[in-house]
């Protein structure tokens, strides 16, 4: 993905589940500042939660960078980890796919909840997921 639109608002370290809470709070606040409606905010923050949790649980931790732009209004969250990567992204996006005994709805669900989502991943190197909410 190209450079995220807007200005960098916050860099959140993602090491523990509490860190995911913080990242999603920041993303929600930025959407609120841009006047996002409740459903928009809930959808995007849920996506950030899914992806942020993946980074903590499967990626061994990482960071979330949150960008905000006023014209045209959008919030972008770039979530990066240095974990094992995803061998088959298309399969991972399908509901029901899980390597961790969970439900396997997270990644595909997150994509449906964003206006735009891109996944860059290299096996053995890590994963970077870019999520965009446009208002």
């Amino acid at each position, binding site marked *: 993905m190209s450079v995220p639109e807007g200005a960098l608002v916050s860099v959140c370290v993602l090491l523990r589940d509490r860190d*995911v809470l913080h990242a999603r709070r920041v993303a929600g606040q930025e959407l609120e500042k841009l006047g996002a409606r*409740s*459903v928009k*905010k*809930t959808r995007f*923050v*849920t996506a950030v939660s899914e992806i942020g*949790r993946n980074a903590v649980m499967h990626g061994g931790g990482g960071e979330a960078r949150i960008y905000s732009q006023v014209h045209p209004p959008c919030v972008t969250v770039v979530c990066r980890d240095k974990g094992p990567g995803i061998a088959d992204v298309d399969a991972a996006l399908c509901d029901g796919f899980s390597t961790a005994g*969970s439900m396997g709805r*997270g990644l595909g669900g997150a994509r449906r909840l964003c206006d735009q989502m891109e996944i860059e991943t290299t096996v053995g190197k890590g994963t970077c997921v870019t999520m965009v909410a446009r208002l």
Partner: protein
Amino acid sequence: MSAASAIYFVEGVLLVAIQEDISDTDILDLQEALAERIVRDSARAVVMDINALEIVDTFVGRILAQLASVSKLLDAQTYVVGMRPAVAMTLVELGMDLPESKTALSLSHALQDLRGKPLA
């Protein structure tokens, strides 16, 4: 038990208000604590108020669903109350439902439903 949620026992019903900033660890602790309380208090129902939750993602959704299944095995009906409209819409989009839970708009709706049933 963490301070992220408190459990109250009223009229044979365990009431839980889940706090906004509940973490994954807290909700796993809550699941365990509730299962123990159902048996210890001989509770006939569990009412979980999730109105404070701005989002319910697949992890929290799965724990809520499991909690309802565990309660059912322990002969207690689970009610999930206070779900925000945006949360309901997002859960549907995630392809999740809470099959073993009854949902009620509010705590009083849930209690009204329960009062319709004779005490065990």
